[in-house]
């Protein structure tokens, strides 16, 4: 207990006096995860909505597969992206391995199923309510999907936040494709893993506190925007 109290106090001191190098790590973490969330949102929302309103053979199978992919282990995603981007891999010529770009790709693949699957469920529920009215107005297919996405945008915030949470929290994928290179691809979670294994527990714990605080702040900001906008449009 003594040790934990000491580590915690020491970590808070470190956070309070966060040096430039640590700020870079925090900044890179945010840049990578937010980019991945943006990409996964742009791809995942239309994909989920199309699955919700579309009818094609094998649709149920695709939905089951998508739901299962929400549980993708980050290390597996990391490994696959690693193989794709490694010099001998099909995308090796891009030279992306061990860059922040590779980390964004890996995290995008990791959270795309989460955003798409949660969006699919929300849009499908809404489609049940809107279908007759929209079809009566002659709105079907892609325009209907986009109309629904916009109309239930407040519910979809939760899907995006789930993706964000996953992206900020994972360590396996960014570790493998980023390589945890100091000053280049080192992010909060990989630093925490590294410092823990080195025995620098206060620093690891301090970064953990920062990570949780940032995720909390992002969620709080999303909630404020959501509630105020919801009040405006009913």
């Amino acid at each position, binding site marked *: 207990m003594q040790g934990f109290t000491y580590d915690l106090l020491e970590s808070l001191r470190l956070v309070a006096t966060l040096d430039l190098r640590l700020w870079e790590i925090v900044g890179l973490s945010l840049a990578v995860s937010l980019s991945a969330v943006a990409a996964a949102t742009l791809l995942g929302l239309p994909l989920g909505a199309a699955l919700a309103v579309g009818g094609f053979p094998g649709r149920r199978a695709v939905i089951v597969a998508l739901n299962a992919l929400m549980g993708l282990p980050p290390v597996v995603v990391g490994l696959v992206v690693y193989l794709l981007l490694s010099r001998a891999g099909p995308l090796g010529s891009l030279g992306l391995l061990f860059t922040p770009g590779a980390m964004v790709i890996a995290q995008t693949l990791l959270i795309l199923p989460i955003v798409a699957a949660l969006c699919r469920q929300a849009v499908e529920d809404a489609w049940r309510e809107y279908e*007759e*009215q929209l079809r*009566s*107005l*002659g709105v079907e297919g892609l325009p209907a999907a986009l109309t629904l996405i916009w*109309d239930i945008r407040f519910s979809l915030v939760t899907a995006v936040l789930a993706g964000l949470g996953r992206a900020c929290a994972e360590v396996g994928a960014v570790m493998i494709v980023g390589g945890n290179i100091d000053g280049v691809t080192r992010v909060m979670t990989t630093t925490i893993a590294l410092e823990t294994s080195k025995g620098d527990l206060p620093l690891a714990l301090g970064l953990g506190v920062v990570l949780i605080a940032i995720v909390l702040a992002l969620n709080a900001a999303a909630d404020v925007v959501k509630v105020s906008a919801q009040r405006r*449009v*009913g």
Partner: protein
Amino acid sequence: MILPLNLRQAAFSAGGREIIAALSLEIGAGPNTVILGANGAGKSVLMRLMHGLLEPTAGEVAWSDGDQRRARRQQAMVFQRPVMLRRSARANVLFALQAAGVATAEREHRADEALREVGLLHLAHRPARVLSGGEQQRLALARAWALHPEVLFLDEPTASLDPSATREIETVIKAFDASGTKIVMATHNLGQARRLGDEVIYLHQGRVLERAPVETFFKQPASPEAAAFIKGELPWA
């Protein structure tokens, strides 16, 4: 002109149950048509077959204008429970106009005209979803009005409204009638059928038992089922 609408041996069944039995019907321009029948008689399904939301499982439903898209744009439907998008009342009307391919320049004018017609112009900028049930149903009518349809389908438009909201809705329906729109309305409300209908199609277990002018139908129903329905619905008469 997309009228007359012809149902030729049109049938609809779902889950092995026959909901509409092969019926042939011509709906022409002119008198307001009220589809009367008890709950479960198949009124809603018949309306949806005519409007094209359901495909008949046998037979055909055909407008005189064979072009599906053009026929679709000349009709509108108002449902028992209106579905409004999460945007302003006016934006809901504009959305319908945009979906119908009305030119941008014309949309605003037509939306305001429609909102004025149903008495909602002063609430045009309110979020549609916070309007009362009666106001939302009037907004649904405004959305239909803006489209200037040749045919308007109404599926129990006042079934979940109180008497004063019902009166307001009926006033708007009369205005539609006066503007030359063909009204096809499903209801189980006999008073409403008398107030708004010119002719009655009486539906019983998916079959058309009678088609008669309103006065004739209520004075001398030809089928015992219709007679029982009229009696049952008006126990004080």
